[in-house]
C-alpha cells in the first residue's frame, strides 16, 4: 500500500504537476496561434518570438519595479509587470500588422505568402529580443519559491517520496484557467467576440452584416499578443527566460493547435495538455516508479522510453500521426 502511494506521489511530482504547468503554457500559446489562424487565416510563425518579446517586456519592467523596491510579496513581481509586457507585445503586433500583414491583406494574398511573411517577422522580433536583453539565461522569479516542499510533504505524510509544488507551477495553472475562462466568455458572450467568430466563420456574410473587418483584426492581434505575453511570462517564470527556447516552443505549440484542430480554441487547450503530457511521460525515467509498484524487481536500465534530448520528436510524431489519420484535428478545426 505504502509502495503504491509512493509510486503515485513520485509520478505526481515528476510527471503530473510539471506536465500540467507545461500544458497550460502550451495551451495559452496554442490559443494565440489558433485565434490568428481562425481570423486572419494563416499560421503565424512569429508567435513563439512574440511570446519572447512579451516576456522580455515583462522582465524589463519587473526589474524597474524591483529597483523601485516594489514587489508582490509572496507572488512573483512579474505578475505586476505583466500588463506592461502585454502592452509592449500589442504595440509590436499592431506595428507589424500595419507595416507587413495589412499590405498582403489588401492584395488578398494566398495564406502561404502570409506564412512566409510571418517567418520574416519572426526573425525580426528574434533579433530585437536578442539585441535588447541578450541571449543568456535569465531567472526573474521572486517571491515564495514553494507552496509545498518535498521535505515538508515527507514529514507530513510519512512517505518516502516527496511531492513538491512550486509557486510558479500553481500560478501558471491558475492564471491559465482564468485567462481561458475570460477568453471563452469574451468569444461567446460579448458582441465583439461573436463578431470575431462570425468573421472567422463566413467573411463575406460578416461584411454584409456590417461587421468592420479592421476592428476584428485589431481585437485579434490584441488578444493574441496578450495570450503570447502571458504564456511567455509563465513559461519563463516556471523554467527560465532564454530567447532561443521560445523559438523552439513553436513546434510543440503548433503541434498542440493542429492536434486539437486549428482554429478551434477548445482544441488548442486539449492539444496543449496532450502534447505536454506526452512529452513528459515519454521522457520520464520509470525505474524508481516500477521498483515501488513491483516489489523485488530491480530493473537494469533507467526505463526511459526516449531521452530528453528527443522531446521535440514527440510533438513531431504526434503531429504527423494526427495529420495522417485525422487532418482536421481531434475537435473539428477551421473556425472559432
Amino acid at each position, binding site marked *: 500500500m505504502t509502495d503504491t502511494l509512493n509510486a503515485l506521489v513520485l509520478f505526481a511530482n515528476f510527471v503530473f504537476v510539471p506536465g500540467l504547468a507545461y500544458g497550460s503554457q502550451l495551451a495559452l500559446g496554442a490559443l494565440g496561434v489558433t485565434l490568428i489562424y481562425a481570423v486572419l487565416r494563416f499560421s503565424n510563425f512569429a508567435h513563439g518570438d512574440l511570446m519572447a518579446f512579451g516576456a522580455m517586456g515583462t522582465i524589463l519592467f519587473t526589474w524597474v519595479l524591483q529597483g523601485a523596491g516594489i514587489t508582490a510579496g509572496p507572488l512573483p513581481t512579474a505578475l505586476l509587470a505583466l500588463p506592461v509586457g502585454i502592452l509592449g507585445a500589442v504595440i509590436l503586433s499592431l506595428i507589424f500588422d500595419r507595416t507587413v500583414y495589412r499590405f498582403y491583406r489588401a492584395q488578398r494574398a494566398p495564406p502561404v505568402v502570409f506564412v512566409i511573411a510571418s517567418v520574416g517577422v519572426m526573425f525580426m522580433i528574434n533579433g530585437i529580443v536578442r539585441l535588447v536583453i541578450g541571449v543568456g539565461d535569465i531567472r526573474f522569479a521572486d517571491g515564495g519559491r514553494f507552496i509545498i516542499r518535498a521535505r515538508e510533504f515527507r514529514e507530513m505524510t510519512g512517505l518516502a517520496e516527496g511531492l513538491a509544488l512550486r509557486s510558479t507551477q500553481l500560478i501558471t495553472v491558475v492564471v491559465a484557467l482564468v485567462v481561458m475562462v475570460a477568453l471563452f466568455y469574451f468569444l461567446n458572450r460579448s*458582441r465583439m467576440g461573436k463578431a470575431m467568430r462570425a468573421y472567422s466563420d463566413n467573411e*463575406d456574410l460578416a461584411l454584409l452584416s456590417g461587421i468592420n473587418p479592421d476592428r476584428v483584426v485589431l481585437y485579434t492581434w490584441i488578444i493574441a499578443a496578450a495570450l503570447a505575453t502571458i504564456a511567455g511570462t509563465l513559461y519563463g517564470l516556471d523554467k527560465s527566460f532564454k530567447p532561443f527556447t521560445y523559438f523552439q516552443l513553436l513546434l510543440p505549440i503548433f503541434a498542440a493547435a493542429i492536434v486539437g484542430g486549428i482554429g478551434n480554441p477548445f482544441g488548442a487547450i486539449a492539444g496543449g495538455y496532450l502534447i505536454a503530457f506526452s512529452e513528459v511521460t515519454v521522457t520520464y525515467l520509470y525505474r524508481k516508479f516500477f521498483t515501488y509498484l513491483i516489489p523485488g524487481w530491480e530493473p537494469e536500465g533507467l526505463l526511459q522510453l526516449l531521452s530528453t534530448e528527443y522531446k521535440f520528436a514527440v510533438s513531431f510524431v504526434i503531429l504527423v500521426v494526427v495529420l495522417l489519420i485525422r487532418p482536421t484535428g481531434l475537435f473539428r478545426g477551421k*473556425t472559432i
Partner: protein
Amino acid sequence: MSAPYLIGEGMTGGYGAADILHSCTLSVEKGEIAVIVGPNGAGKSTAMKAVFGMLPLREGEVRLGNEVINSLTPQERVRAGMGFVPQTGNVFTSLTVRENLEMGAFIREDDFSETMDLVFELFPILAEKAAQPAGELSGGQRQQVAVGRALMTKPSVLMLDEPTAGVSPIVMDELFDKILEVAATGIAILMVEQNAKQALNIADKGFVMVQGRNRFTDTGEALLADPEVRRSFLGG
C-alpha cells in the same frame, strides 16, 4: 403612378471587359413580390447583385425611394434599408441561430429584441432551435435563418438569391408561404428563382431574363398565361 420604390434602370455592366447585363431593368414596390426568372446563365443573379452594388455598372442607375444609390457600397446599402440573402454561405454555420440573428442586427445600436421576437413569430422553428448551431439545421430551416438574419436590420427591401435552391418541393411551398408573409408586412421582395412556375404564382411582378436582357416583364399571372413564356421558359 409614382416611380417604383426600388428600381435598377437600364443596368449595363460586367466584371471584366465584356458586359453581362445589357440595359436590364428591374423594379419592385413595397409589399410586392418581384421574381426574376430565366434560363441558366441568363444573368438573373448578376442582375440582382447589380442592384445590390456587387457589380460595377457602366450605364444605368439604381434608385431606392427616388434616391440614386449607385455610389453606395453593399454595406452602405444594407444601412440604407436593403437586405440581401446570398444563395450560398448565407448563414454562420458555427454560430447558434440566435447568434446568427444577433449578427444580422450588428449595425443596429438600438434594442433589437422586438425584431428578434417578430422573426421568431414568423419562423417558429427558429425559436425552437435558437440555441443550436445553424450548421446543424436542415436546408429549409437554414434558409429561414438566412431570411431571418436579413430581416434583423428591419429592411424596406429584401433581396433573395434562389431561396429554394436544393430544398424539397414541400419545403419550397413552405418557404414561399413565409415569403408571402414577409411581403405582407410591407417589405418589398425581389428574388431570383429557378422554380419559375411556382415563383410566378406568388409574384406580383415577373421579369423573364435571357442573356442579360429583359425579355418579358409583366404581372406574375399574365406571364403564366402567356403561351410564349409558357412554351419557352415554363416547360409547356
